[in-house]
């Protein structure tokens, strides 16, 4: 039964037709809701955090969420067009961050990044985007194109292979140590919004992420290539019959996804200051979760899903788990993320915001 049917069928459950499966699913919902509500009430009763601290939680969530959102865009577009979970997308983010590092580091040492922040950042972003895009295209050409028409798990496995390959290649070439991104002074300063202190870099990341994502949205919605992309996502065969060059569309998709990955990589590195070969894996998986959350194939969905995931991850442990008195709640942060992902997959496989993707993708 597809998710769409499941969702529809829920309200029609009548006594006598309730199966054990339904009972399990309902108890699952009740359990999660219980944890959320009891935890929240507990946290409110404990009253441990000040308003400024809650604001900080939200701000951190928005920042990481904005980055998740950008990575999620790559997943969502590729999945939309190719029905492929590009498992290596997180590693393409890593490639961008690495490329950016080799520009940012000398620029910072020479003082250029402090003196000319805009030009410096543009240069870093440009190199990162170029690298990520190039590698995304290479992987598409070498590893994914042969699977264009293959169903089953082959493409997913190839993508996993690409992921390992990229990680290990970068480890081999640049070493396994953690490299530190520069932190010019202007990034570290904070300013005040409604009496709360906000780090400038966070605002910059969120702001630029919105700008880039809006740009992407316009490209997909307004340009000829974007229209072709949506057509292929809807029905690749029909689109090919209409004279759309599917190859070109796929390449274009990877270009867009790679570019967003490069940008996300640089932002990620500027916020968290570290690059190393394994850095892309975890955010990659989480961003995929964000894409599913928002309804895979939907660009606004990926954005909202990313931000939502970031918020839940940031606020959740303090709000739900700490409230219940669970020790070391931040160790269970991934638990919250994955529970959210699974709940969405079970109960709303089209995503919280997706509607149109109904049948063929569930």
């Amino acid at each position, binding site marked *: *039964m*597809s*998710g769409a049917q*499941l969702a529809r069928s829920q309200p029609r459950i009548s006594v006598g037709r309730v*199966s054990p*499966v339904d009972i*399990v*699913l309902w108890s*699952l919902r009740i359990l999660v809701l219980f944890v959320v509500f009891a935890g929240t009430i507990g946290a409110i009763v404990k009253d441990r955090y000040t308003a400024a601290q809650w604001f900080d939680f939200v701000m951190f969530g928005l920042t990481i969420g904005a980055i998740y959102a950008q990575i999620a865009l790559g997943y969502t577009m590729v999945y939309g067009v190719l*029905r492929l*979970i590009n498992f290596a997308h997180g590693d393409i983010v890593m490639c961008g961050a690495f490329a950016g590092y*080799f520009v940012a580091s000398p620029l910072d040492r020479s003082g250029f990044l402090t003196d000319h922040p805009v030009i410096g950042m543009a240069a870093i972003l440009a190199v990162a985007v170029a690298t990520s895009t190039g590698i995304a295209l290479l992987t598409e050409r*070498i*590893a994914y194109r*042969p*699977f264009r028409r*293959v169903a*089953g*798990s*082959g*493409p*997913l*496995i*190839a993508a*996993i*292979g*690409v*992921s*390992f*390959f*990229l*990680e*290990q*290649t970068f*480890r*081999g*070439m*640049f*070493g396994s140590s953690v490299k530190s991104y520069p932190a010019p002074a202007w990034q570290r300063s904070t300013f005040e919004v409604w009496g709360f202190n906000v780090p400038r870099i966070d605002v910059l990341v969120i702001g630029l992420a919105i700008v880039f994502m809006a740009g992407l949205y316009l490209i997909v919605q307004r340009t000829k290539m974007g229209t072709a992309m949506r057509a292929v996502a809807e029905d690749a065969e029909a689109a090919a019959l209409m004279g759309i060059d599917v190859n070109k569309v796929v390449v274009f998709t990877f270009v867009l996804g790679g570019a967003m990955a490069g940008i996300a990589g640089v932002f990620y590195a500027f916020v968290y200051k570290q690059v190393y070969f394994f850095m892309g894996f975890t955010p990659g*998986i989480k961003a*995929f*979760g964000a894409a*599913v959350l928002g309804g895979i194939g939907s660009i606004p969905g990926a954005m909202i899903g990313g931000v939502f995931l970031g918020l839940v991850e940031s606020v959740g442990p303090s709000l739900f788990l700490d409230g219940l008195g*669970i*020790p*070391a709640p931040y*160790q*269970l942060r*991934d*638990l919250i993320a*994955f*529970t959210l*992902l*699974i709940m969405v*997959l*079970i109960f709303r*496989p089209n995503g919280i915001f997706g509607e149109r993707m109904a049948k063929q*993708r*569930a």
Partner: protein
Amino acid sequence: MTAVEHGRAGAALAWRRAALVGLGFGAGALHLAAVGVLLMLHQRWIVIDTLSLGQATVLLLAGGAGAMAARDADARLARGALAGLCATLPLALLSLAMDAVTLQPIFIVLTPDLQAMLTLGMPPLLAAPALLLVGVAAGLLGAALRAIPALSRALLPGAIAVLIAGVFQELIQLMLQQYEGPVGEARDFVYTWEGLTQQGAVTVFVVVTLIAQLAGRAARGRVAAMEPARRRQIWAGIALAAIVILPAAAGSYIGQVLMLVGLYILMGIGLNLEVGLAGLLDLGFVAFFAVGAYSTALLTADAPNALMHLSYWAAMPISVLLAVCVGVLFGLPVLGVRGDYLAVATMGLGEIVRVIVLSDFGAPLLGGAQGVLHIPKPQIGSYTLSSPVALFYLTLVAAAIAAFIAWRLENSRLGRAWMALRDDEDVAQALGINLVRSKLLAYGLGAAFAGLAGSIFATMLSSVYPSSFQLLISINVLALIIVGGMGSLPGVVLGSVVLIGLPELLREFGEYRYLFYGAVLVVMMRLRPEGLWPSDVRQRELHAGDETAALDAGADLLPARE
């Protein structure tokens, strides 16, 4: 266009292809150099003071390019030479570049050592052409081997034997190490601890070439007469026999490696029920493995947080049962989730299990980061199965039982229901197949095998740590059944040997294990997506029904078609 022009265009195209093939191999060589593999290989001799593994790799790449380029009928050798040239070109350029600028601050492995390897100590301006020349020679040789079958028949077996003897020298020496007397002397003649001696290499080459010539002539007729399926079976039988005998003969290390292979076979068989038969893509399989391991640990260990102190044999069935329960619990919520989404959902479930096992939240029961220690080994009477070889045979028995069960299930009513589910869930349901029951059975039975593997794993290590239950395990198991051949039992065995056994045997290159792994996955998917040993098209009408059909002949004379 005239025919001549056509021919000319075709020839130009073939030349271009040869160059491209060469450059492709060259890019591979460059990649190996840049990530440090080449240098690491260079530090290992195949034949001492003569040929390093790194040099052999470069030669093989150039030779391979030559052989690939020599596909067309004419100008084979010349094209091979071109391809060989192109295959060494990137390395030659790299050596020149390294001479001009220091690349090491960015690319950490582009060290003077690598430069020394590429130039053999010569000045770069001289070394680069020399390298290209070597490439041309290797390309020529590769092309010649392809073009002249007699040549390859004469040279290849010996060369391959030398290569194997060199690459696996550590392993072979370990196996021979326990023998003294003539075996020991032969060993010392052929090997030193660094690799093959020169006289050893020559000996191996000559002996193997002779054997190949003699045996080849004798066996070719008989083997060729056999049908391919049967030939494959014989080979499989021999390979299986080798797996069974080897640990007893070769000692604990091989036993240990094959034991890991056996555990993965066990898990592969389990996952194969889920993915190969029922089509339920599961990336959270490691959770069942963890449940099996932790149940055994908590039921038997001499640790403060252990629940009981049962014997291993009592704990094992309980562990399997618990794994089945968790499998069913896993399956219940994701019953309605399909395809790639299912993969992600199960991956999430697997990660949840790992996070809980690791967490301080679960620590009072599960031991948290410190794991559970002091798990006893299984005992039969007064004999303790403590050596890797003994435990290997335990695993082997478990795997054999699992394979038997899986094979019986595959050909049963339930197996058919699973295959129907895999192909079309809606139709299967419309034909009266109970989805909930069938899927939960797939999860439960798959989990049983993983739980069994986990249980053996726990007693093998005498300790369990949460770090042993990473997502990587699930990916490994999935990859091995796909590399082996989806839905095929021999494929599972083959996949485990290639993806688990081989990297274990080449542990000295462990640093690059996952690079190899990634490359294998991609290459496999491109060249042989159906797997190394795909499941046969199952012959059910004619094989089981032939006799009936023959008996019925004459009784039914209805036309075959309307």
